[in-house]
């Protein structure tokens, strides 16, 4: 079956996936120490939406519930959703672009760079919020982009960027940044816990301001990445022939690298290093639906959002919170191994 034969089915499934994602956002908002009913959670959120709010008519929930849903739970849930979307769609794009199933969103050193930036900020004691963004977040974002820039500069030869050089430079720069983090930790033993926690990845301390920046950046980035699905398909079948099929290989790669880097840097700087999402979600989609990027990219996005919401909801259930970055691997790895065993097909 070719893609066009299944296009209608995919479109319906995609809409179903989006609805499931929205539904999970509401469900997740009911879960936690305070008991809030599904209807109440839904109403509290719907009231804030334009148009829909007025349709609900006279109705009011308890003020505390409203505060809990809107200010405590919702920013975090939304952050988990978009970060899941961003990491997973970038993972999918990188795996195709590098024709390497092991590529993940952090393969170019973004995570280590961000962690280095965050560590420096933490060591300098700059943990207070600056206008709701946090200096740690700002430092992480700047260092993340700086790292990718260094990796690009190393890998570039003239106008061409070699994939192998990018991956190798990414690994090297990544190790270098990690070693600097270790030095910082050894020299500042009192900060080790904080740095370690940051690196485990969590969306627990996210602010509305951060969420409101994350959402447009990630959604826009995801849409742009999905534009290039057909070009990526052609690049995967052979970079040599891509140009004579009308794909500006180098330009496509550059645009994607820049967009992906910004998306990942935005994710990692607010949440720390949440691993594995960008690896397992795209591969899961491929194992189910095949590796056509017109399917893999959008479905990875939705799947990543769903997966991270579920993980984060579990993460905040116990009294002592476990970072979501730990849970993604803890639940993700066995699940992924099980589908891998069931379905041993070649994947890119």
């Amino acid at each position, binding site marked *: *079956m*070719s*893609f*066009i034969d299944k*296009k209608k089915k995919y479109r319906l499934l995609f809409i179903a996936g989006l609805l499931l994602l929205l539904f999970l956002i509401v469900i997740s908002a009911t879960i936690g120490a305070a008991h809030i009913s599904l209807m109440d959670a839904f109403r509290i959120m719907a009231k804030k939406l334009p148009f829909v709010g007025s349709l609900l008519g006279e109705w009011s929930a308890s003020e505390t519930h409203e505060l809990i849903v809107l200010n405590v739970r919702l920013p975090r849930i939304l952050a988990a959703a978009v970060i899941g979307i961003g990491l997973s769609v970038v993972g999918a794009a990188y795996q195709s672009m590098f*024709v390497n199933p092991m590529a993940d969103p952090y393969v170019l050193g973004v995570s280590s760079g961000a962690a280095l930036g965050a560590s420096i900020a933490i060591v300098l004691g700059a943990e207070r919020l600056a206008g709701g963004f946090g200096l740690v977040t700002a430092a992480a974002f700047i260092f993340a982009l700086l790292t990718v820039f260094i990796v690009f500069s190393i890998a570039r030869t003239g106008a061409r960027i070699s994939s192998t050089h990018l991956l190798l430079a990414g690994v090297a720069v990544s190790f270098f940044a990690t070693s600097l983090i270790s030095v910082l930790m050894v020299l500042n033993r009192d900060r080790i816990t904080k740095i370690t926690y940051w690196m485990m990845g969590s969306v627990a301390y996210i602010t509305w301001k951060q969420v409101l920046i994350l959402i447009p950046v990630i959604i826009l980035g995801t849409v742009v990445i999905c*534009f290039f699905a*057909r070009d990526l*398909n*052609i690049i*995967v*079948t*052979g970079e*040599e*022939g891509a*140009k*004579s*099929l*009308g*794909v*500006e*290989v180098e330009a496509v790669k550059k645009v994607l690298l820049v967009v992906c880097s910004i998306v990942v840097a935005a994710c990692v700087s607010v949440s720390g290093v949440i691993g594995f999402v960008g690896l397992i979600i795209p591969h899961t989609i*491929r194992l189910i639906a*095949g*590796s*056509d990027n017109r399917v893999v990219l959008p479905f990875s996005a939705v799947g990543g959002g769903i997966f991270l919401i579920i993980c984060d909801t579990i993460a905040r259930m116990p009294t002592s919170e476990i970072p979501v970055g730990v849970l993604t691997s803890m639940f993700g790895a066995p699940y992924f191994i099980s589908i891998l065993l069931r379905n041993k*097909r*070649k*994947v*890119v």
Partner: protein
Amino acid sequence: MGQQSVSYPINVKNINVSFGSINALKNISLCMEKGRFYGILGPNGSGKTTLLKSIAKNLKPQRGAVFINGADIGKMKAKELSKELAYMYQNTDTQCDYSVTDVVLMGRNPYLRRFQTEGSMDREIAMKAMKATNIWQLKDRRINEISGGERQRAFIARALVQDTDIVLLDEPVSHLDLQHQIEVLDIARKMARKQRTVVAVLHDLNLASTYCDCLILLKEGAVIAQGEPEKVLTEEIIEEVYGIKLYIVRGVNNNRPYIIPFKK
């Protein structure tokens, strides 16, 4: 008459390609005409693929330029070029699991806008190409699960679907059995008869002699001989280029030269 104003479909002007200290192509100039089937021949490492890649803008020559219908390909956008020229490369190994139909349909990419999906006309064209290359029965199979020869035919179909005036084929028959070698070369010759310019890198001198209108023989990055098979495939030239002893049988094979090599 008016030689200056004629723009050949393919015009290679003094191109030089080197990889490090190795000169892969040494100042090569060639003109290729409409409606002819060209065969590029030569021993391993003589620059056949490099020449084809240079014409396909896959490699940028250090010196010289390639013109397609009078336009410098160095200044053409990929999309423009892809409507003029289709290129089937040598290594069709792939790890991806797209369906054969989806791979063939990629040949329609030059004509699609970014958000457009292939329409019924594109599917019609793809079906014709797949039937012509004898892979229609494989349409729903995955490209990484079919044999090398089948995959090669799928990539030839993809090039056909592009519907270009120029078709470049790098060793299109290398993985094929005898029947399919003949079929593919028949298709290539038919395309040439439809006023296209077809250029194929070939290894089998006899197949080249049988099917091509014009041969280009390379050795160490330089053109040793070019022209009709009768002119290029002579004892002296082949002995010089390949370093083998041979007989040439004439009067069979549509009066094209037929080569029988033998050990010295």
